[in-house]
């Protein structure tokens, strides 16, 4: 530790810390603009000047490291004068238009002017004006207000990895500009207005709508991806105005999906009152009429229950209580993305925290479009890349990452067995093996060279495998995961403390769900098949949209046409076409509730915003349903419900004691005996089907958001993509082509892209080609039907 004195106070900080950081850590106020704890140090605003005893001139504290015994002064007459001059300089060209600027009220320039500036400027010559530029649908620019701190430039370089903002010209002509008109190709672009210390970059969707001091902030958790970021939902009255990241949480950023999904809260797609289908259309009714109809449809019937992982833990346990009370034999499904329901050797959830992943010796991404799925983990990997640490990847598409991937292999999903087998052989040669290698290897005849990348990474001391959707949704997922598990055991990456087996889940609460529903869980596909086969009388759907999302859209459609649907949720999705009854449940912005993210971090939301309509927290809807159906209500308060939760997961009880928010991480399930062996393929379709996850399109909330939909259109690809060689091999060219699969023959607009593995049919635009998501293999044939 280095000891120094700040304003005569003795403080200790880690050697190498900057004076500014030392001050921040010790709650000493030093003004600054260009410094940002998450970005590199540019030291160009000169606002952070301090005095160091014995130095002839003031020092820029952000770029001056502390030294032993240093005596720092942050307040003096000279400094006051210096700061006043800096402010005068920064304001020379500023339009001084605070009354019409959205930043007003939360602007550093404004605050520091009041604190450090002179009350009157001396500059009376003409001011310059700067042309604004286009930064996409989320960021508004007013560049005359820019003070050239370059935070945005460093953000684009270092965090977003796009490097498309820069400093053009110099001196009096200097401007900050984007590279291409109309495009900011980052999934993190919404953070730019947050880091701009002035009103140059502003949030476009909420532009000119409200002022910072009118907002009430509600802390909550984003459920739009398994990262489950801390968010602050800012509302004016009952209206959500924006969503922003929370200071002091593990990530200082949030992604555009989580941020701009908020306009879905007030979209027409919300279910805000009980609805019942009458004369072919859904009509708003009161709760008792809706329950009457529900009783007709469900009482003494055989039902299938399908729900979304996006509810709070309390909601999930309430669903399980409802099932136990009313339909004890009913099968439940909550994952629309899993085909293989055999237990996985390591279940969904991360064994490591994202910061541990960032620090690991090796990181290998196995079949995942991380930038779209987990933009914040991707951002961590970029940080890791900047520090010179390798990231390798194996997968079906050269997904864009905005970083340099060290070793990269394109494979088809059917090659995974060969990849794992190749890796097993290589590590065995080095004497690393595990009981089970022989049986596994014996069942696979292929070997794929990409296995070398995996094996090479496994040799390191710490290796984080990020096992993604291409494996998780594989038909033979259990055996692949068993194979990976064996590899990790053989190489010593399966022990507590060095466990690198991370299976990226589809949504939040994965660890809780596999614990609570372990036995009752089936594949969503099975439930639809049972319904279509006439084995079920009705479906209960609690907050998911199996037609718009997931791997079973065709099966879901067939089932929904056959049996009545009771939908309980906050938002309709495409289910309004099928539902006979809709019961409104509160959105995640409107509840007190607990969420567990992919790392096992527990987050409790405590100050919800008011419900927009008649929706109630899901657990209350479940209890009320139990009551009207004539069974005994198991819990009557949130506290009772939480004690019920603790029977499943004692780890959660800590999280609810107010004093102890930092409870232990909830570990993902491990099934030591899950020893599934590889299965041989049975179909003869030559292409493997992989569907794209688009952060702007996936999930009912995103589709109901006009803002995300607009961004999604900017990022749209052709409906279906293949590698040019795939078509060339058949003498075909891009355009309308027939695709054959188990679903029969369908015609699609097929485009080509070098990024796709030859032999893979990549469904780029779900919805148009969504039905193909049901299949894992297909073939392309001739011209249009």
């Amino acid at each position, binding site marked *: 530790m280095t000891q120094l004195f700040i304003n005569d106070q003795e403080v200790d900080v880690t050697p190498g810390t900057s004076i500014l950081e030392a001050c921040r850590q010790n709650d000493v106020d030093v003004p600054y603009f260009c410094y940002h704890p998450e970005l590199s140090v540019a030291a160009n605003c000169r606002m952070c000047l301090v005095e160091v005893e014995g130095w002839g001139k003031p020092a820029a504290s952000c770029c001056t490291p502390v030294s032993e015994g240093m005596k720092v002064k942050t307040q003096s007459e000279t400094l006051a004068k210096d700061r006043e001059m800096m402010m005068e300089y920064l304001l020379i060209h500023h339009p001084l238009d605070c009354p019409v600027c959205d930043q007003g009220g939360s602007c550093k320039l404004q605050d520091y002017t009041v604190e450090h500036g002179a009350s009157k400027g001396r500059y009376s010559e003409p001011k310059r004006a700067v042309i604004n530029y286009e930064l996409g649908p989320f960021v508004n620019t007013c560049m005359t207000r820019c003070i050239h701190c370059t935070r945005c430039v460093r953000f684009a370089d270092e965090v977003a990895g796009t*490097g498309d*903002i820069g400093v053009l010209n110099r001196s009096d002509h200097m401007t900050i500009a984007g*590279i291409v008109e109309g495009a900011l190709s980052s999934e993190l672009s919404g953070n730019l207005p947050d880091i701009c210390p002035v009103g140059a970059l502003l949030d476009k969707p909420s532009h000119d709508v409200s002022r910072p001091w009118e907002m009430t902030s509600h802390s909550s958790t984003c459920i739009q991806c398994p990262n489950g970021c801390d968010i602050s939902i800012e509302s004016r009255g009952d209206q959500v105005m924006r969503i922003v990241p929370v200071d002091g949480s593990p990530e200082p950023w949030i992604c555009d999906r989580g941020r701009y999904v908020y306009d879905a809260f007030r979209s027409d797609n919300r279910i805000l009152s009980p609805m019942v289908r009458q004369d072919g259309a859904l009509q708003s009714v009161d709760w008792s009429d809706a329950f009457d109809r529900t009783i007709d449809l469900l009482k003494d019937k055989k039902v299938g229950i399908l729900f979304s992982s996006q509810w709070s833990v309390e909601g999930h346990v309430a669903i399980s209580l409802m099932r136990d009370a009313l339909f004890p034999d009913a099968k439940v499904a909550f994952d629309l993305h899993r085909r293989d329901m055999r237990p996985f050797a390591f279940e969904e959830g991360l064994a490591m925290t994202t910061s541990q992943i960032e620090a690991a010796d090796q990181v290998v991404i196995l079949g995942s479009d991380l930038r779209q799925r987990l933009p914040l983990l991707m951002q961590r990997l970029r940080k890791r890349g900047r520090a010179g640490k390798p990231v390798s990847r194996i997968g079906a598409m050269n997904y864009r990452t905005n970083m340099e991937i060290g070793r990269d292999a394109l494979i088809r999903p059917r090659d995974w067995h060969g990849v794992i087998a190749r890796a097993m052989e290589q590590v065995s040669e080095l004497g690393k093996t595990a009981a089970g290698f022989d049986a596994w290897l014996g069942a696979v005849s292929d070997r794929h060279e990409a296995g070398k990348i995996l094996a090479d990474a496994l040799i390191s001391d710490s290796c984080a495998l990020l096992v993604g959707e291409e494996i998780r949704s594989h038909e033979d997922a259990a055996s692949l995961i068993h194979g990976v598990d064996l590899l990790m055991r053989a190489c010593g990456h399966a022990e507590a403390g060095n466990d690198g087996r991370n299976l990226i889940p589809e949504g939040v609460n994965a660890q809780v769900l596999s614990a609570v529903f372990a036995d009752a869980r089936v594949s969503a596909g099975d439930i639809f098949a049972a319904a279509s086969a006439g084995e079920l009388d009705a479906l209960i759907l609690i907050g998911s949209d199996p037609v718009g999302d997931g791997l079973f859209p065709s099966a879901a459609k067939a089932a929904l046409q056959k049996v009545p649907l009771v939908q309980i949720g906050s938002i309709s999705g495409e289910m309004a076409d099928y539902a006979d009854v809709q019961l409104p449940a509160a959105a995640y912005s409107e509840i007190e509730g607990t969420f567990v993210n992919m790392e096992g971090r527990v987050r409790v939301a405590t100050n919800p915003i008011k419900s927009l309509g008649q929706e109630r927290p899901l657990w209350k809807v479940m209890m009320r349903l139990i009551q009207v159906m004539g069974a005994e209500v198991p819990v009557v308060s949130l506290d009772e419900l939480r004690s019920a939760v603790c029977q499943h997961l004692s780890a959660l009880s800590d999280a609810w004691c107010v004093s102890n928010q930092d409870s232990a991480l909830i570990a993902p399930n491990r099934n030591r005996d899950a020893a599934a062996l590889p299965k041989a393929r049975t179909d003869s379709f030559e292409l493997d089907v992989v569907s794209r996850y688009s952060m702007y399109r996936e999930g009912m909330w995103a589709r109901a958001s006009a803002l995300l939909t607009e961004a999604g259109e900017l990022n749209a690809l052709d409906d279906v993509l293949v590698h040019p060689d795939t078509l060339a091999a058949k003498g075909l060219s891009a355009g309308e082509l027939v695709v054959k699969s188990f679903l029969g023959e369908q015609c699609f607009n097929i485009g080509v892209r070098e990024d796709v593995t030859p032999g893979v049919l990549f469904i780029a635009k779900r919805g148009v080609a969504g039905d193909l998501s049901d299949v894992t293999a297909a073939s392309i044939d001739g011209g249009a039907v």
Partner: protein
Amino acid sequence: MSADTVRFSEERLAEIAELVKRYPGPQSALMPVLYMAQEDFGYISMDAQKMIAEVLGLRLMQVREVVTFYTMFKEQPTGKYLLEVCTNAGCMLNGAYELADHMCGTLGIRMGETTPDGLFTIAEVECAGACGGAPVVQVNNIYHEKATPASMDALITQVRADGGVE
């Protein structure tokens, strides 16, 4: 011209490959490569910048920042003679603005424009780094220090008389 048509010749590319070896990284070779581009193409169009970014493995923005920072790099075609008048503090105090106005008058064009015969372009630049000789006018790569309306008129007349031949 598109990024496909603005191309360095094979010899140039070989020269660049050699050059890059002398530096710790390709980014350091950007300045000399920009000079080459300007020499080969006359000016550095956006397409040329894209091509250079590709050749050196840089981001387009990294190239753009350098091109726009230095007034020596031209993004637009210029006349055969580029008259760059420094109007920064030192030169301004020594009459640069009056000089620039006078030159515009002689040439019959406005600041930043090119004469219809394609001979002259006049531009304003920030400190040319020769303040001791203020006011400074840079004509292509030659500095004219302590320039006066008369000396500049003479230069322009001379060039016109020669018909642009050097």
